[in-house]
């Protein structure tokens, strides 16, 4: 089971982070990915794969004070 932002996600094991983000139409330039608590650098998005039991956090800038 893969958890993405606290929610269960299916059918993503084996995908690269980059492919996964593209599929979600996520704005790559405004996304930080944490894989099991470790920040994945943007340059490594296309070589880092999603594994079973991964916990992914996708974090972006939003308006704030």
């Amino acid at each position, binding site marked *: 089971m893969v958890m993405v*932002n*606290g929610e269960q996600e299916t059918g993503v094991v084996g995908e690269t982070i980059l492919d996964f983000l593209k599929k*979600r*139409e*996520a*704005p790559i*330039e*405004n*996304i*930080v990915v*944490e894989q099991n608590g470790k*920040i994945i*650098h*943007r340059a490594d998005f296309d070589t880092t794969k999603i594994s079973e039991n991964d916990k992914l*956090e*996708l*974090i*972006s*800038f*939003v*308006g*704030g*004070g």
Partner: protein
Amino acid sequence: MANEKDELMIGGHAFTSRFILGSGKYSYDLIDSAINNAKAQIITMALRRNTTGKENILNYIPEGITILPNTSGSTNAEEAIRTARIARELSGSNFIKLEVVPDKKYLMPDNYETLKATEVLANEGFIVMPYMLPDLNIARQLVDAGAATVMPLGAPIGTNKGLSTKDLIQILIDEIDLPIIVDAGIGRPSQAAEAMEMGAAAVMANTSMATAGNIPLMAEAFKLAVEAGRKAYLAKPGRVIEHGAVASSPLTGVSAAK
């Protein structure tokens, strides 16, 4: 902290604007005009989980504006440190507005956890701008921990109540050799001007814009107020007479009717 051009220096970076703008609680479409009218050079942002389909705020930020990420949502030092590292990954810069707020009712910052996080982040090369409840002893410890500025609250976040902590902020301005940037609670341009007259290095505001009827116009009003307050501070305001009065016009040579 003033240099010859009266620039605001933060962590070795020079700014001509002394008004830091927040980007929360209003349409991204208004960010550009708010920045332009405020002549702001720094804009704050928060970090949250990305939901597919959400707008990308970075598309609304003009070129050359410094992004100041905050660690809002963090309730202890550990969470704030994690958020700061994520922010740096995204912004590519070391600026971080450190907020550690465990209290949900008054949104009071935890000065002790803030100090702990400041120490760690400063050691990692961050330009740490800690948000704090104004307290001289903690402020001195923040200086020792490597903070780049100290950001005391004027009043609880989002209240627009102004300088409720005025006397405590004045102590920080007088005693701390770092830019004192008043953050939170500033609801009116007059309050921003007052903070600047007191010698604050800069003012940060968000809710006062977001809750205004005309956001770009209010941003301009804040710009003028911050500039007026700064000039007044540099001009060294005159003394106050608590009792009685002192005439402004000559007391002699008054013409008599008869």
